[in-house]
């Protein structure tokens, strides 16, 4: 009834190619943006920021990055944790070497450094595919973690090998360090996520994204119709790594404040983000958000319900939580192998016909 194309007249090419062609979708999108920017920063407290929103926003950036590589370009990567570590350590080195430069620039530069490293580890993708590429990126994961553990220069020779983020401000507001307010943290991550998601959406529906998808669907056919696999694959690695590097930098500087590479950026992080995009939906921007929300919020919610509401013992709750999350993932993937994004797509299809399905 409300969700339909009919009556929504497009009078220009720009209108015709907009991201949300249906008015209801558009309004919903504006509403979400308005709430995210206009309401949440004023009501958010430390707990909500640090346990829910900031990790969700940062994981969403990382999931977007991996989705570009795996979902859009079809290159499986298990090196996400390692690339996040590159972002984090690059950000740390830049923050401590150039304290007078804005942290925003450092975060973006950290993404740039990660992009270079990503391209380097993306080179084998020109020769190997599928599982073999997954193994090559797995090597990147282990190599990078080993490197940051081994070379003391990366952690400024601190006794314990920990890196910790000193306080940095933007417009007089602390965004890293212990004195950061909840809303500053949230807004800083939100703005970066918004810009990157907007960029990702527009990249994926333009030439670049279409080339990625052509490679994903069938690389030989893509090459025959004139898609250069070298630049296409490497651009996917570069852009994906940029996103993941930014996510790693934020994860360390804004969210954790101190990190140690094996624990914060180990192999389990790579798997976590891979699960996010699989559950959310490969090759979907919305899927990246949905997957990140699912994997971040569900454990926190279950913990609060089981321990906070029902008063269970913490160890029992932790074990049950693992089982519930695991079972939900399996059930989810059996019911809808294409992830939450597909559910969303189906819901929209049904809404279009509602209330008069043929």
């Amino acid at each position, binding site marked *: 009834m409300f969700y339909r194309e009919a009556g929504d007249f497009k009078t220009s090419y720009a209108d015709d190619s907009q991201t949300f062609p249906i008015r209801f979708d558009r309004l919903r999108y504006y509403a979400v943006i308005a709430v995210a920017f206009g309401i949440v920063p004023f009501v958010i*407290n*430390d*707990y*909500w920021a*640090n*346990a*829910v929103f900031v*990790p969700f926003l940062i994981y969403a950036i990382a999931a977007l990055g991996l989705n570009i590589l795996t979902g859009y370009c079809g290159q499986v990567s298990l090196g996400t944790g390692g690339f996040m570590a590159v972002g984090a350590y690059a950000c740390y080195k830049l923050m*401590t070497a150039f304290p007078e430069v804005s942290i925003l620039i450092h975060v973006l530069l950290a993404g740039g450094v990660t992009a270079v490293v990503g391209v380097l580890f993306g080179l084998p993708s020109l020769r190997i595919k599928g599982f073999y590429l997954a193994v090559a990126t797995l090597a990147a994961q282990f190599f990078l973690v080993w490197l940051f*553990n081994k070379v003391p220069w990366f952690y400024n020779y*601190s*006794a*314990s*090998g*920990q890196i*910790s983020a*000193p*306080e940095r401000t933007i417009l007089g507001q602390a965004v890293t*360090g*212990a*004195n950061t307010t909840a809303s500053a943290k949230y807004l800083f991550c939100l703005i970066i996520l918004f810009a990157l998601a907007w960029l990702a959406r527009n990249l994926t529906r333009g030439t670049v994204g279409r080339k990625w998808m052509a490679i994903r669907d069938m690389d030989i056919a893509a090459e025959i119709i004139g898609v250069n696999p070298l630049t296409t694959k490497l651009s996917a690695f570069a852009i994906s790594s940029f996103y993941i590097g930014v996510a790693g930098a934020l994860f360390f500087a804004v*969210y*954790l*404040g*101190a*990190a*140690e590479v*094996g*624990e*914060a950026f*180990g192999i389990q992080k790579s798997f976590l983000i891979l699960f996010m995009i699989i559950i959310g939906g490969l090759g979907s921007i919305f899927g990246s958000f949905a997957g990140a929300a699912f994997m971040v*919020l569900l454990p*926190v*919610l279950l*913990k*609060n*319900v089981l*321990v*906070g*509401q029902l008063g269970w*013992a*913490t*160890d029992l*709750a*932790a*074990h049950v939580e693992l089982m519930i999350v695991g079972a939900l993932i399996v059930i989810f993937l059996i019911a809808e192998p294409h992830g939450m994004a597909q559910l969303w797509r189906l819901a929209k299809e049904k809404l279009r016909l509602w209330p008069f399905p043929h």
Partner: protein
Amino acid sequence: MKKTLTAIALAMAAATPAMAELVVPNLSYRTGPYAPGGIPYADGFNDYFTLLNERDGGIGGEKVANPECETAYNTEKGVECYEATKGSGALVYNPLSTGITYQLIPKVTADGIPLYTPGYGRTSAANGKVFSNVFNYPANYWDGASVAITHLLSENGGDLSGKKIALVYHNSAYGKEPIRTLQELSKKHGFELVEIPVDHPGQEQKSQWLQIRRDKPDYVLMWGWGVMNAVAIQEAANIRYPMENFIGVWWSGSENDVLPVGDGANGYKSLAMHGTGMDYPVYADLKQYVYDAGKASGAGDQVGSVLYSRGMYAALVISEAIRKAQELAGTSAVNAAQVRDGFEALEITQDRMTELGLPNFGQAFASSCEDHGGPGNAMIQQWDAAAKKWNLITDFIAPDDEVLTPLVMEDSAAYAAENNIAERCN
């Protein structure tokens, strides 16, 4: 959909536990590869506060609440637990994780809550001039490293030159802490230090012990935690490494680490910063008010073990600090800032330990504005596999402060410079 969302929002908002008079959150871990260490510690911690509540009606007449939060030794969950519990008026944190401690040091300093990390955490936090809210008495990692070397010196007639000492360590902030001290000590005493990292969680150590078998170090020190300990001791037994030359830090010296190895672990040594076992008068009270009343924390099967004793010791120091804070503030309902002052003014004497039912259990120490680290003495204990018992084989050994003090100053000064902290206590 809306209904579920509302339910979710409500459930999350209700995350904060019920208000009590004195809140001492227990950031514990009873799951994951570090649970063998986390469970007894959390049980000892909870049981001591239960004893205070049941026997004395709390501290200074105020009941103590210990909301527990599962961290699984994971820093992200640690942050979440900290944020979830801090709103309930938390007085002090004791996360039992060096990684989480590193995260919390700036946060507690900003929020004005004390952080108590006995025998773990950031060693240079012993310098109260820089770390206003962090306390790590009675002993820290560098003390431990130095005590172990002092013990080896005394075994070798004061000379370690030409000896080879291997350090098997958990490849994390925790395991790396002693390296700097050991390097300094190796320069001073002329022994060769071999660093052998073990990655989280440490279930696979074949290659590390192969290296030890090949290099034949005279002594092996270990900074391990969780399942890593038992695996390392098993591997040492497998290559027939002489157990009396294998010394673990106090986190690698609990029953859970040696029991799985059986007779092979006989003679394994570890550091100890307090006594263990149930031969202390306090256990009579614990039995009467806690165990027999069915109020024991967890499964109740860890009572009297090394890490149970350590959890109890941490709870004891915290309760004494709260008592001191009540005395200083003149009120029983103290807040976090007053408890911090209590920690800084705390003095625990042997007489006080005897009053508390734990005579000769731990060392006497006194804190001050400058010194948050205590004397740092430790004993050596040895495992008797036949009797399934740890025997203390030395008295308290003092660390080599001549080496440690400059290192603490150097590391804390680096932290102060990085974070623009002005020195206090001047």
